[in-house]
């Protein structure tokens, strides 16, 4: 019957040591974490590693979940922080690392259209600074309203709106460059 239990109830139960609730919770949300990871990092390998990091840290993290926010909001925040963390670590290792990794597996997609679409996505995401990538990952990738994204990122709605207009500017610049 717990299949219908809310995320928040499961998370609180898990934080109190209910392993069944924890098991349900991670199975319910792994794909979400993975996809968000991919949108943040750009490659499947990075997304897997990131999801792995998050999953490994989740038991300890959950103890800080107070139930005052939606579980998914809280989770997105956790994933986003983990993503930034990974990016920082990578930057320390490789000086000139591209912000958004290139997924060779996806570029080599059999479907030419999909490959083309991925190529463009890679260029577009790479052209964005980190905070804008995070913003689009939440709003466009995860279908969040600006209000929800603002809550996850701990910013005001106005900031998100402003960032989205920045995204547009970047994309326009990219289009102009490519048109030349």
């Amino acid at each position, binding site marked *: 019957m717990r299949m219908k239990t809310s995320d928040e109830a499961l998370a609180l139960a*898990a934080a109190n*040591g209910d*392993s069944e609730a*924890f*098991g349900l919770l*991670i*199975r319910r949300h*792994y*794909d979400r974490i993975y*996809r968000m990871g*991919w*949108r943040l990092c750009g490659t*499947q*390998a*990075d*997304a897997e*590693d990131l*999801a*792995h990091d998050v*999953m*490994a*840290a*989740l*038991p*300890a*993290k959950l103890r*800080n979940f107070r139930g005052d926010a939606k579980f998914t909001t809280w989770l997105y*925040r*956790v994933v986003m*922080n*983990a993503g*930034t*963390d990974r990016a*920082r670590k*990578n930057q320390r290792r490789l000086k000139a690392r591209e912000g958004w990794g290139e*997924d060779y597996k*996806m570029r080599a997609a059999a479907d030419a259209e*999909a490959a083309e*679409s*991925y190529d*463009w*996505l890679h260029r*577009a995401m790479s052209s964005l600074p980190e*905070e804008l990538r995070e913003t*689009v990952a939440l709003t*466009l*990738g995860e279908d969040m309203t600006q209000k929800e994204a603002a809550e996850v*990122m*701990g*910013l*005001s709605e*106005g*900031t998100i709106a*402003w*960032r*989205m207009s920045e995204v*547009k500017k970047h*994309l*326009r610049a990219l*289009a102009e460059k490519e048109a030349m």
Partner: protein
Amino acid sequence: MQEFDDDIAKLKAALKGAPTADGPAKQAAFIVAEENFKALQERGELTRPKETPASRPTFLKGLKSMFAPISMKPLLLTTSSLVVIGVGVVLVQPNLQPDLGKASEQLVETVATDGIGETSDVPTSRLLDEELIVVIPSDDPVSADDIKEDGADQDIIDGQLIIVEAITEEPLQFSAPQSTAHRNAMKQARAGSVSGLAAGSPEIAILPAPTPADVIQQPGASSDRFTNEAPNPLKIAAEEPVSTFSTDVDTASYTWVRRSLQNGQLPDPAAVRIEEMVNYFPYAYAAPEGNAPFATTVSVSETPWNSDTQLVHIGIQGEMPAVEDRPPLNLVFLIDTSGSMNSPDKLPLLIQSFRLMLSELRPEDQVAIVAYAGSSGLVLEPTSASETAKINAALTNLSAGGSTAGAAGLQQAYQVAEQMSEEGEIGRVILATDGDFNVGQSSDEQLKTLIEAKRDSGTYLSVLGFGRGNLNDSLMQTLAQNGNGQAAYIDTLSEARKVLVDQLTGVLFPIAGDVKVQVEFNPAQIAEYRLIGYETRALKREDFNNDKVDAGDIGAGHTVTALYEVTPVGSPAVLNDPLRYGAAAASSDSDELGFLRLRYKEPGADQSQLIETVISPAALSTSTEAKFASAIAGFAQLLRGSNYLGDWNYSDAIALASDAKGDDRFGYRAEAITLMRLAESLAKSR
């Protein structure tokens, strides 16, 4: 404007094309999440991990000195020039304001704790109730633009602390890394499995030994060095009826093998010493009667891997004197604090292990600590074991750094031990190291000479090995074998508990010295025989009666087990054909299988005593103890790649061991079965 919206729509559509999660990675993530969940529940609140990555302690230390002398008000002012970064994102929460006071308090609390010197220089995990607060002086300043960009939130950021959710804490464990990016993290994670034990926590948490598949280790170069000999060959009883060896109560090899398997790697065959694996387990042999320090049990059973041969099983049980009657101990901890010990599974684990042991000592026992690294030094003068605060403080102040002057440290430790010993007291140096004696008098041979000389003057030496990657097993063996002591390898706090607490009396209190075993087989009954293990303990036949030749010691309550695989005359399993021109077949009317002689010395005595037992052809035994010992011996031979086992494999070992689990009060045998399963899967996946 239309085209921008198109771009956004296009971006949205492209982002929607996220790949679906891959099965194996997903499963691996579930496994690690659930393992960590379980581990966290078992450890309880106390050890909630807040692992500090390697780069942080310096920052924190810097801060400590920065903040320690100043009061709250300037502290808040100071923070305006700081940017707080977890290794994670700078996360500014709108609801931060009300929490600020609390956050500041926490920071102060941290500083205050640091100020009274409770922390040590070893990497410790911080156990705060709330989030870890990391304040790092900004060397990569977040520019004003970045802050302005956040518009409305500026007033919150400005001049205030930013609290970072510590997502960057190292996860408890990793498994199945999908990319090389994980390797470094894995190292830390492995280390993390013991980090909760670091100095500073008032209670001691026993960690469960890491469970299988915690970490899949990437094969790589390792500078671990092992000592081992080629497996004992099959001997023909008519040509060489006598087999002689020294007892061995070391267990280091088993612990090492366990750690390897749990890390997802089959152990280096050279690391597998069969007798140490067999002797890791306590066996319920008959206790000695009367004055003898030990009793021997000999039984013969069918060989699990060959129905045409038999196993002769020799069990030696040391007497267990009343613990209350033991003489006072004089212990000198010789602690390696070289740079290579600076890893959570080394120095911090070592310190915690010694703390465990301290609780078992009595007020009349004396403890001293000598540290060695670069230069050696007396860290704690001889102190009564009841002064725990003083001893603890000395342990806490140990920190790793410098290279190792092992020999100088050893000499100093012996000196201290000699000062402490009074007539009738046992002196012992307990050397804790990752085995890296690389400065000074460093050849194994020279150290051996030193240790032998000191052994004869009445100070024994035990060696505890820590860590992985640098362990010099061969040196550990040399030191302990020549110092009348035991070598044990400690990988987890539960292992420390087994060696230093449960078996404290045995480790520290020898009941018989130079115990040698000699078996003479009756060629009329036994065609061929093979001693399983004890390769590094072989003795010459004539050395058995030579009291000048050193051999292993047996501590209080120790059990020693040895196994011979014997092939009866006329069995189809005989491998050697009779010689055409050889001596006539041995003729003896005796139906005895062989004759067992044991020599030992009372502690401190020069003259050895002899115990003799006939190995009689009694009905084949089915004792659980012998069965379990043979399962472990078989398992060890599989790991070594023996060619005497035929088709016998890991699943046979598992079946045999499961059948012979007995009481298994501490779960050691169950753990061995788990390891067999692990080895089975690893061998298959090769």
